[in-house]
Every structure is written in structure tokens, then in C-alpha cells.
């Protein structure tokens, strides 16, 4: 029961924040990918950085249970799936989380996105055995790999000699630095898009 309450509280907060950062509006996602307005990119980078620094610092201080980490497997299909998702992401302005949230926020086109998504998931379920037979689901980098060895976990790592928690904090600070360094817009990026026009 506790886990269901947590699901409602954390999930609800996630939905509210997605809406408030503008992620339920496909415009901001499309502009981020077309590099004409980087508001959402800066938001995402800052979020990843803040979460990474806090999580790894919390682990080092013994405040965060390292057992709650859950690293996903690395395999060629991750990259290919990323290419497919990225293509659809750019065309529609939705990804799975923002598409569901956009539909809930009142966007009708997002309902069609959800219907297509359910069919896409079904298509993957049906073709899974064939996809697996191609070998693109075979582990790379040892499978559930991290950049460096995270203390207290068994995850394989690419730089096994480096301390994973400190590397996590450094990378997190790097994401925060990029978030600050990126301009809001690439003015005069060679695409005549009237970037001098103020947003909204």
C-alpha cells in the first residue's frame, strides 16, 4: 500500500512538473530539437545534473540506498531504438511520458499518439523473438554497465579503476555547467528562422 501512495505522490508530482516546464506542449520539444529554443534542453540538463549530484553525494554520505539504483542493459538495440524514438519525437513533439501527459492536459492529437504507441508496443511484443534472433539485444560493455565502478553495486563499468560516485558527481556538475553555458536560442544559426522575435 505504501508503494501505491508513493506512486501517486511521485507520479503526480512528475506530471505537474512536466506540464509546468512546458514539456506537455510539443512546440517546446520541437524547438529544442530544431535548436531554435533550448529552454527545455537547459531544463533537462539541469535536472539530470542536480539529481546525479544529489544522489551520488547522498550515497557517499550514507543517506541514499545504493540498492535503489537500477541500471539498464547496454546493447546495440538501445542505440537503434533511440534513433527510432528520436525520429518520432522530432516529428510529433512527444515522447512516451510527455505524450501521455499532453493527452491528459487536453491535447487531442496526443490521444492518437497513445493509440499508435499501444500498437507500437504490441508490434514489438509480436516481433520480440525475431528481434532477439538478430543479435541486437546481446549485451555490450558487460550489460548493465556504468561509466565508473559505483561502490556497493555489482554493475560492470567502462572505467573500473575510477570511483563511480565521484565520477557521477563530476558528470552531474558537467551537465549543470552545460545547462548554464547553452544559450536560450542559437541566434543566426544559418537557418533564417527569425530568431530575433521574442518568444510568446
Amino acid at each position, binding site marked *: 500500500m505504501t508503494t501505491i501512495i508513493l506512486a501517486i505522490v511521485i507520479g503526480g508530482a512528475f506530471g505537474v512538473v512536466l506540464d509546468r516546464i512546458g514539456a506537455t506542449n*510539443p512546440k517546446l520539444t520541437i524547438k529544442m530539437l530544431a535548436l531554435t529554443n533550448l529552454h527545455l534542453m537547459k531544463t533537462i540538463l539541469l535536472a*539530470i545534473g542536480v539529481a546525479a549530484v544529489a544522489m551520488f553525494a547522498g550515497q557517499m554520505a550514507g543517506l541514499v540506498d545504493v540498492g535503489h539504483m537500477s541500471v539498464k542493459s547496454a546493447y546495440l538495440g538501445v542505440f537503434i531504438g533511440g534513433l527510432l524514438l*528520436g525520429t*518520432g519525437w522530432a516529428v510529433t513533439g512527444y515522447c512516451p511520458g510527455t505524450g*501521455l501527459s499532453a493527452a491528459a492536459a487536453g491535447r487531442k492529437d496526443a490521444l492518437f499518439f497513445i493509440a499508435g504507441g499501444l500498437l507500437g508496443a504490441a508490434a514489438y511484443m509480436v516481433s520480440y523473438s525475431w528481434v532477439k534472433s538478430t543479435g541486437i539485444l546481446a549485451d555490450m560493455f558487460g550489460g548493465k554497465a556504468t561509466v565508473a565502478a559505483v561502490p556497493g553495486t555489482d554493475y560492470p563499468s567502462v572505467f573500473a579503476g575510477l570511483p563511480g560516485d565521484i565520477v557521477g558527481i563530476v558528470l552531474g556538475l558537467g551537465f549543470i555547467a552545460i545547462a548554464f553555458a547553452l544559450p536560450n536560442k542559437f541566434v543566426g544559426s544559418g537557418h533564417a528562422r527569425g530568431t530575433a*522575435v521574442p518568444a510568446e
Partner: protein
Amino acid sequence: MTLSWKTGGILLGMVFLAAVLLVKPIGVSTQFVIADGIIADAINPDFITQTDEGYTSTNAYMAKSGGKYAKSASNPLNYSFVFVLAMMAGAAISSYLRGGVKGGEKTMPNIWRENFGDSALKRFAVSFAGGFIIVFGARLAGGCTSGHMMSGLMQTSISGYMFTLGAFGAGIPVAMMLYKKSEG
């Protein structure tokens, strides 16, 4: 009003942190499979079956990893599925409090209208096809923007970097090609 990237970024980071702190990293796209499993099992009760060790399915993907997806579809009141429903409720409440999505924006975003015209059918068809390729891709990848990009990069997962490279590697050129007009 959209939050500034600083406020929004910190809040979004706090949500991802809270999830790892209290339960597990956030992920969304798996729940499309769970929803399909619930539908398939409602139509054909033999789709998911209970065994001595747990759950299994006539579908190899539903049955993989010891039937964990089959189990979730049999018990929709589980953390990850409720999480996604709550996310939708949160977005709906927040949107309502902001006054909701208005007018023509409900059918399609203005940036689409500027570039591809006013046909709702066209936007709906493309949204459907886009949803198909996105969730198929997410399942092939084993996660989406939430699970791989946000949760993955914060944990220094190699798979998170691979996914992000693919998603932006395709997303940026496609968006630049398609959306030449983007003042709206």
C-alpha cells in the same frame, strides 16, 4: 506560465531524485506493454496464466524475465502502472489550473499548423504513426526519455548515453528539416 529553466530543472531533478531515493528510477514506456497485456488478457484470458513460480504468457516478450510483465499486467495496481496514471492526473490538474489547452491548440500545436497546414486528419495520422515508431523504438531500446535519458544519465549508465546519442542524433536533423518555420 512556463517555469524558468532553473526552477523547472531543479524541480524536475528533485522528482527524479525522490523516485530513486524512495522507490526506483522513473520509467514510462514499459507501461504501454502492460496496458496491451491487460487488454489482451481481457480479450483472451489464456494470454496470461499463473504458474507455480509466478506468471507467464503465450507472448515471449510478456513472459520474459520470469514473467515480470505478465505479473504486472495481471496486477495493474502496481507501483509503475499507478505511477503513470498519477503522472497523467498530475498533468491534467496542472493544465486545468493554468486554464487548460485552448482553441486550435487542442487539435494540433501551432508550430505544426505553421509548417504543415490546418488538416486535423494529417496531424492525427502523423501523431498515430509517430506514437507507433516511438514506443516500438522505446521497447527495442528498453526505455524512453524518462528511463534511459533522465534516469540513465543521472546514474552514469552507458545505455543512457547510447540512447541519448541515438535520440538526439536522429531528432535534431529531423526537426531541423521538418520545422523550417518556428516563430509560433
